[in-house]
Each structure stands twice: as structure tokens, then as C-alpha cells.
């Protein structure tokens, strides 16, 4: 069992949500602006 007595496969759903937030932050910080950005 994962934290909060959650089965692992169900708990991964929470990780996916947290991962999406981290991915969005990294993408917006690391993405280089191109000349097409207006």
C-alpha cells in the first residue's frame, strides 16, 4: 500500500497530477522564445 492506505496504482494518479504541474513549470521556464513569438 502507498501512503494514505491507497493501492499503488491508484496513488499514481496523484503523482500524475503533481507531475503535470512540475512539467508545466519546467516547460514554461526552460522553453526558449523563438522569433515567431509575438
Amino acid at each position: 500500500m502507498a501512503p494514505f492506505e491507497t493501492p499503488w496504482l491508484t496513488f499514481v494518479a496523484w503523482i500524475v497530477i503533481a507531475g503535470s504541474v512540475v512539467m508545466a513549470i519546467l516547460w514554461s521556464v526552460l522553453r526558449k522564445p523563438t522569433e515567431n513569438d509575438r
Partner: protein
Amino acid sequence: MSELGIHALVLAVYLLLLVGIGLLAARRMRSSEDFYLGGRSVGPWVTSLSFVAAYFSSVVIIGGGGFGYRFGMSTLWIGATNVLIGVTLAWMVLGRRIRLFTGRLGTMTVPGFLAERFRAKEARVLAALVIGLFLIIYNVSILKGMGHAFEGLMEIPYTTGVLLAGAIIILYVSLGGYLAVVWTGFFQAWVMGVGLILLTVVALKAAGGLTAANTALQAVSPGLVHTPGEWGWAGLISYAMIVSFGVWGMPQLMVRFYSIKSTSVLRVGTVVATVGGSMAVLPYLDGAIARVLHPGLSNADLAIPTLTKAVLSPWGSALFLAGVIAAGMSTFASVLIITSGAVVRDLVQKGLGRELSERRAVRYSRIVSAVVGLVSLAIALRPPALVLVLTAFSWAAIASTCLWPMLFGLYWKRATRWGVLASMGGGLVTALVWIGIGSPYGVHGFIPGLAVGLVAMIVVSAVTERLPEDHIARVWGGSPDENGTPASTL
């Protein structure tokens, strides 16, 4: 003050605010680009939160809670795929190119983009018809969700609730156009978010915390905490795909990217939309908690209203009701303006070739918004019994038609006019036929619709004539080099 008085007061203040925003937006509107896209001037916070508000409707809050109640914690996966695929990846993959391409092609609607990008008039008419027809069906189910929320939480008769909410939306959309839709959407996203967080915190406390809730659910049935649990893979994956990947073909959401001020809006917008979109998981969690606190409800869709009444104070439940109404209204408003665009711009102006002055185009758009709203309202007063089935049906039909043409239109230069028409027709017909024969194997028609649309796009494009290089170069924003290859900067 009585409970009903508190509900009425909160609701009245809230609805007045919405009409005020509509009036403010109306003062800033001069052209049809203002009506449909807010003059392409919208910033990151308003774009991202109005995207979230248009995405999650009353159907998701009430129906999602019902799924959580019936199937337990595995439904958290629907919230998770909503965030990852429906929000974060959609913003990263689609946002920038949609803004750039539609700006270069000068199109304001999804059917318009398909027609100009693929030089296919038929794509415009087919997409506009599908959008016009199936979004009305979606409208009806949203109104129905709001009517039940009024009924359950405020003891207002269903018809009065539907009429009240419908009339306010039609008023501010036809007055204020897109700006009214995005500004009210921005405001409504906050109301939804606060309402959902409040309910979740209090409900978790009542259940003794997440660990206690999971243990109690496990005791009822282990299937309520495991994935895929009681639902099974076919149902869980079908549903998660349709409400997450389906977003990529839904015009009321794609249009958010048309209207941004510049592509730099996406930088902050993607983060805000992802954080805001995370609220998608809460109705499912709340529904599962309701199963612990109120076992034995006759109808799973009553899970959220029952939980709200039991755990929140009258002020809290008034706020939550406002959140549900907000979710319904913002989605309905977004859908209304898209339907009006499909009818006025794509069918009347471009499809039938009617020349309209800017002033007349705005007036027609207002009238069509009001008429479409009233038609939806009239159907919602006596909704067909299968309206929830029709919601998934309408998403499946629209996304099966528009998803691949949008995505390939943005990323594949080799996609051809015939490829796109084959994909649209094949995807739509397959989805409808699959649903018509009773969705074999528990798989929703959206999945086979997508598969056929994908194959048709690739195979037919490969064997038909390419679009002219100079056209592709213009769309991609470069000029062809001496070999005729577009010098893409993307």
C-alpha cells in the same frame, strides 16, 4: 437568516455580477473579431482560468461525483488524465501553433481554420454542421445539470432553475460576446475552485482523513480503492480518453488559443491552467468520500448534493451551489458563442457566401446566440431521458470529426485536403455507428472513431495531391527556398 434566504442572497449577488461583466464587455465591442475572439487581446490569467471554467461543467461536478460514488478511488485517474492530457499537454502541444497559424490565416473559428489550412470548403461546412448540432445537445445536458443543482440544493423547481440560469447566460453572451465569456469564465473558475476545495476539506475532515476514508471504502469493497477496480479497464480508459484527449478536438476550448494576445501568454498560462485544472480531481474524490459517509443513496448523482448539505454550513453550501452554477454557466456560455460562430461565420457568411457588414455580422451573432440559447433552453425544460448519454455522444461526435484535422493541420505539412475530409467523415460516421450498435465490448464510440479518423488521414493524404508549397510556407510562417521547400522557423 433562513437557509433558503442565504442561498438566494449569494446567488442574486453572483448573478448580478455576471450581468455587470457582460455589460462592461459589451461597451468594448465593435467588430465581429471582438465578438468571437475579444479582438485577440486576452492575457494569460484570464485565458487559462476561462479555459478551465469552460472545460469543467456542472456535468463534471455532479456526474463526476456520481462516478466517484459508484466506482470509488479509481476515478481519480479521470481527474489525473484531465490535468495531464486535457490541460498541460494540450497547452504545450497546441497553444502556440494554433495562435500563430490562425493569426496568419485570419480565421476566427475551428471550421474556418480547417477550411483555410486545407483549402477545403467542405471541411468548413461539415465541421460547422457537426459543431452546431452536437453542441446544442451538450448545452441541453449542461442546463439539465444546473437545473438539478438548483432543485437539490435550493429546493427551487427544476424548470425555474433552468430558466433563471439560461436567461442570465443568454443575456450576457449576446451582449458581451467573447470578452464577456472569458471574463465571467475567469471569475467563475475562482468560484468553482473555492467551492470545490471547501467541500473537499470539510468532507475529508468528516470522514476522518484520507487514510480513514480509504480504509472504510476497502471494507465496503476492495474494488472501491483499487484501479481499475469495479469499473474495469474498458470503461475507465474509454471515459478518461473521451474527456481528456477529446479536449484536443473541442472548439470551445481550442478557441482560447486563437484569442491570446501573443504566444508569450502561454508561458504563464500553461502553469496557471494546470494548477487550476487540478481541481478536476476533487469531484471524484468527494464522490468517493460520500460513499463512506452516506452509503445506500438511491441515485449516485445525488452524492455531491447530499454530501454538501450534510457537511457544509448554509453559507458554505450557498457558495458551493454558486460554484456548480458557475461551472455550468461558463461552459454553456462558451458553447453558445462557438455555436453562433459556426452558424453566422461558417454557414451564413462563408458557406452561403452572404456578404455582411461588421455591424450586421455582430448583430446577427447576437441574435443567433440568443436563438441557440433559447432552443437549448426549450429542449432542457423537457430533456430527453438519455441526456447524459447524449453528452458523451456529442463530445465523441465533435472530437472524432475535428481532433485529427486540428492536430495534423498544425504538425503535418503533407496532410491533404482529401485526407482531412476522409478523416472527418470516417471518424464521425464510425463513432456514430459504433454508438448506434450499442458500444460493443464496453468501448465508447470515440475510440474507434479516432482510430478510423487517424488511419484515413494518413493513408488518404499519402495517395492524394499535396497542398501547394507556397500555401504551406505561408501557414508555417516562412517563405519557400529555391528548391520550393518551406523555410520553417517552427
